[in-house]
Structures are given as C-alpha cells and as structure tokens.
C-alpha cells in the first residue's frame, strides 16, 4: 500500500469474520487510517486486493459503514441530527431528499440503536462530541453494513463517555452481527470487548489475540527494535525497550 512514493504498509494480510471485533493498533503514522481508507476504496492499492463480503473493495460499497476522524461540526450547521443520519442512507443519490416512510423508519431505528432519540431532532452542530459521535455511528449503520470501520471514535471523549461509546459499539456489533475494525491508540479499554488485534508497525502487521500479539518478542520483531510489554492490574503497557537491560 503506497501513498505517493512512500510505501505505508507492505505484506499486510488478514481477514475479519462476520460479527468479529478487531482493534487496529500501532504508533502514529503506522498506516492505521490508510488501512481503513484502502478498505473503503478511497485509496488505491499498489499491489494486492481487499475483498469485502466476497467482492473487491470499491468506493460506494453499501456493505461498508465508515466513521472517519473528523473535526467537530460547525455549531451553526443548518442540519439536524436526523438529516445527518439520513445522509448515510441516501446521501449519495441524486435529487432533493424526499424520505418515504420506509427510509424514515430505518433512520429512526438506527437512531434508537445508538440511543440518540432525545437529541436527534436538534441541530447537529450544537451537540456535544459524544452525541455527535453517536450520530456518526448511526449514519454509518443506516445502510445496514456488514463491516463497520471506525477511526479512533473515542479520541475526543472523556473516560466515562469513552466507555459508554465502546460498549455501545460492542453491543451493536453483536446484535447486528456486524464485523468491526476499530482504530485505537490504547488497547486497554477494549480488552474486554475485542476478539483480535491487528498491530501495525514498521510497515508490517501482526494479528491475533492480544496475548499473542502484544508481547515483547512479537512487537520487537515488528518495530525492528527492542520493545517491552508490561502487564499490571490486567492492563497492558508498551514502551521502547532498554538495550542495556
């Protein structure tokens, strides 16, 4: 996978099963976002293929729901939450939106699924970061995707709201049998809900259960330099290793 002349990821290979919760980890610039964008078809691959639900990945694939990292919405944005969510259902179609009863019901259902009923009728730009993130999640779910790609969905949230949102994503994934690939910086809040991790570093990728991947020997090989992994109180900590130790 290359951007311009720079090769971002090489030899990445893996699969995600229906209903599986995969967390994509790695240092800044490791290519986590690039990986998600390649799956959505936003970036062409230099070599290899991405298959989603049995066909090659392409832009506009209704099987994929995507929640990228974004700036908070403009407070004066003339758009209500329901309209923001509805764009996920029919935003790519031409014409002026005239939602029929079926569309309206589908939008109402995903809004209920993320627990946003109480504020979805208000202006989207005036909502808190956590509320906006729930609406973006509902927008991504509106098309009933089989694969949900989430890029650091909890980045701007405090611990309490992080926990709430992650539990919500896990529940939605379980109930709808939607596969999830979630990019995160810290694996600890996710240890109880994830099935597997993909760890990207040094342009390569290691996949498996956290205890198989987040280990000194595996990560040292990946980074190409010594890495220590500590475990304390059921939490994992990764740090650059000391060569003289």
């Amino acid at each position, binding site marked *: 996978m290359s951007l311009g002349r720079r090769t971002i990821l090489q030899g990445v290979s893996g699969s995600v099963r229906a209903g599986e919760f995969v967390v994509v980890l790695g240092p800044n610039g490791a290519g986590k976002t690039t990986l998600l964008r390649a799956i959505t078809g936003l970036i062409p691959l230099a070599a290899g293929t991405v298959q989603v639900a049995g066909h090659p990945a392409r832009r506009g694939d209704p099987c994929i729901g*995507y929640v990228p990292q974004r700036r908070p919405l403009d407070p004066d944005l003339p758009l209500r939450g329901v309209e923001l969510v509805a764009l*996920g259902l029919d*935003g790519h179609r031409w*014409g*002026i*939106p005239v939602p029929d009863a079926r569309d309206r019901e589908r939008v109402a259902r995903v809004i209920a699924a993320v627990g946003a009923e109480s504020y979805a009728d208000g202006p989207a730009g*005036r909502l808190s970061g956590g509320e906006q993130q729930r609406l973006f999640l509902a927008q*991504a779910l509106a098309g009933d995707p089989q694969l949900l790609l989430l890029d650091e969905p909890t980045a701007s949230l*405090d611990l*309490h709201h992080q926990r709430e949102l992650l539990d919500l994503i896990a529940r939605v994934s379980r109930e709808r049998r939607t596969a999830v690939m979630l990019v995160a910086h810290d694996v600890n809040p996710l240890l109880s809900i994830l099935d597997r991790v993909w760890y990207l570093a040094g342009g390569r990728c290691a996949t498996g259960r956290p205890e198989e991947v987040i280990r000194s020997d595996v990560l040292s090989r990946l980074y190409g330099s010594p890495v220590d992994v500590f475990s304390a109180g059921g939490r994992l900590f990764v740090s650059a290793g000391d060569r003289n130790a």
Partner: protein
Amino acid sequence: MPNPFELEFMQNAYLAGTVIAILAATVGFFVVLRGLSFAAHALAHIGFAGATGAVLIGAPPLVGLLAFTMLGAAVMGWLGERLRGRDVAIGIVLAFALGLGALFLTLYTRYATETFAILFGTILGVSRTDLLTTAILGALAIVALAVAFRPLLFLSVDPEVAASRGVPERFLSVGFFVLLAIAVSVAVQVVGVLLIFTLIIAPPATAEYLTARPSTTIALAIGLGLLETWAGITLAYYIPWPVGFFIASIAFAIYLLARFLHPVFHVHRSEPAAEHAADHA
C-alpha cells in the same frame, strides 16, 4: 411619479431581481455551508476584470463576466477541498484581477458610467434581452442545483464519508463552482461586484441563524433575498440613491436582527450541553 409597476424598465428590474435573488440565495446556501464566502467574493472581482475587458473590446459585459468567472471557477473547483483555508492565495488572485480591471478601465476612457455599473450594479437599466439571458441561466442553474442537492449536501457536510459512499467529489466541486460563477455573473447586474455578498452570502447566513433544517434555511434565504431585492428596487425608484446601497443596508439590518434574535431561537439547544457539563463535575 407614475406607478413603478407600469414602467417597462421597472418591470424588467423586478423580474430580473426576482430570478437573481432566488438563484443567489440557493447557491449562497452551499457557499456558506462549504465555507467558500471569500472564494465567492474573489470570483466577483475576477468577473470585474472580465467585464471591463469585454467593454474594452466592445462586447457585452455579461459575456466577459461569465468567461472570467467560469475560468476562475474551474480552477477553484479543481482545487476542491484544498481551497479551504487558502485565503492568502485567493486574496492575491483577487487583487491581481482588480489590478487587471483597473488597467482595462484606463485603456477604455470613454464612459465612467460603465465602471460604476459594473462595480455597483445597473438593475434599473436591464434590457429585455438581459432579462431573458438572466432567466435562462437562472433556470438552468437552479435545475442543476436541485439534481445535485443531496450529494452536494453530503459532500459539504461530510466530505470523507461522502467520498467513501461514492459521491463524485471532483465533478461536484467543479460543477458547483460553475453554478457559483453563473450566480455571481447575473447578480453583478443587480448589486455589482463590490456588493455581491449582500445577495449571495447575507440571506443564507441570516437564515442559518434562525433554523437548522436545510430546506427551511434555503426557503428562508430565498424569502429574505426577494424581500431585500424588491424593497431595494422600489426605494431606489422613489429616492435617487443606488439600488445596491438600499439592498446592502436592508440585508445588513436583517442580519444584525437575526444575530440579535439568535439566542432567543436557540435557548433550548444549549441545555443538553449544560447537562453534560454537570455530569463531568
């Protein structure tokens, strides 16, 4: 003084003003949404060079306006999302276009009235031919906007997700700028290049303060644009001051009023945020 509605030049002015107000407010909704106000302003100044250039070679100013704004629009549209926050680059192009316009005016020394018309508008001097051209261009642009409405809204609010859902980014970006070029070119007839903000930006920006639904915002913006244009034309008939002055003043007054009323309309919206603040404490 005769009833203004009985005079042909006044009828032309009201009709052209109506088409232009509707087009300007609709295009303006997306200009505000996409954060392109300054680009729209610059496009008008690029049009100034086109209009003065056309006068210099003896062509109708509208032709020069369209040619130059279309060219500018194509370049800006091609840059697309990269245009956001490029105020300095836009400003330098704007200044260059104004300089070019100044040169054309110096070379063409006969009528100072032409200059005044391009800078501040000549709605009371619109001919039947101008009216027909304006109506055709306006109708085409509004139909195109209606067709592109939903994907353009998606792309404006959420570019990354829209692109991933297959919305044709570059096509819509260039296409929208072409529509903006048309709107700017016809709006120059009413308010001139210097006051283009009053028709394209002021009505939708005002409407945004008062509602949060896209369709209501556009309807309200059209209503405000029509009100301001009609009132401006009528006042200019009775008081010998420029139409542009009246329209700009009314637009400014209504904008101020909307900003003042804004907190009243949005009181209930700040409540959820307050609850969360309490949550964290």
